């Protein structure tokens, strides 16, 4: 289940768990409403767990990039890499801070990074800001009008 949950875009996991749980509790009680209620609980639980696992892994990758980019000087290129405990979705590439700006709140950086996958290279940009616990991914969520397909 954990392995399944780690696969990006695997939305069926919680549905399958919900149906299985509803079936199991349905056989223990004749009341279908009780079966459905148990199903909802399990579904929501598995859904939340899947989201949690996937987010933690993505946060791990963002932290790896932010750490690497924080230790490089502006204009200096260096490599980054993430290795997960469950070896799915290991990624690597290069990055370069291209701009740094100081504000009265904190210092932020704009970086360009690449993700190399099977010899194919994709380029992305993002922002990082310095927090008490180090450099962190700082790109805020898109405007609500633009995130329709994200949820």
């Amino acid at each position, binding site marked *: 289940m954990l392995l399944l949950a780690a696969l990006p875009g695997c939305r069926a996991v919680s549905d399958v768990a919900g149906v299985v749980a509803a079936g199991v509790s349905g056989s223990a009680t004749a009341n279908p409403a009780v079966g459905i209620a148990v199903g909802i609980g399990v*579904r*929501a639980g598995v*859904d939340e767990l899947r989201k949690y696992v996937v987010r933690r892994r993505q946060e791990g990758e963002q932290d790896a990039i932010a750490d690497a980019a924080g230790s490089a000087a502006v204009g200096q290129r260096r490599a980054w890499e993430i290795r997960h405990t469950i070896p799915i979705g290991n990624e690597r590439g290069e990055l370069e801070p291209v701009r740094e700006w100081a504000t009265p709140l904190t210092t932020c950086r704009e970086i360009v990074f690449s993700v190399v996958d099977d010899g194919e290279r*994709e380029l992305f940009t993002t922002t990082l800001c310095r927090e008490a616990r180090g450099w*962190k991914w700082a790109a*805020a969520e898109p405007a*609500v009008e633009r995130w329709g397909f*994200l949820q």
Partner: protein
Amino acid sequence: MYARVGLLALLGLSGCGSVLTETTSTAAGVAGAAAGAAVTKNATVAAAIGLGVNSLAAEGLRYTERRVHKTEQDNIARVAGVLPVNAVAAWSVRHDVPIEPDEGGYVVVSREFGALGFRCREIVFSVDEQTKRHGLVRSFYTANICQDGRSWRWASAEPATSRWGSLQ
């Protein structure tokens, strides 16, 4: 009845979107299936009606979530819109529907850019959280806002599709 009481109780819990999504849509689905069963004896047809209602309810909840979050973005944009570059101001939001926590922090305008016909700003804002273990935890984020007529609105676009795959 139970579904409504349950929903109201769940609404009090913030941050557990999955329970809310599952319950809203399934409760509506069960009610829909029951209504469907009243007009047809065919279980498959009743279930299909239930599924239709189910996805409609999920859509309704998503609409509410979006509206609630838009309030927060509008709030930060409004505060940052009237600030001079490099000046700091506090922002905060209180939600009427408690599906997101009330939040607050500081915002600073770090850059202004634009061209003929539009005016945009780069902002850095903090979300301040008082935690029991670590005291005040301050997280920083960056975003862009643009002036749309008279009001300032959130202008950051969505991430590249190849980067959001695992976040849905």
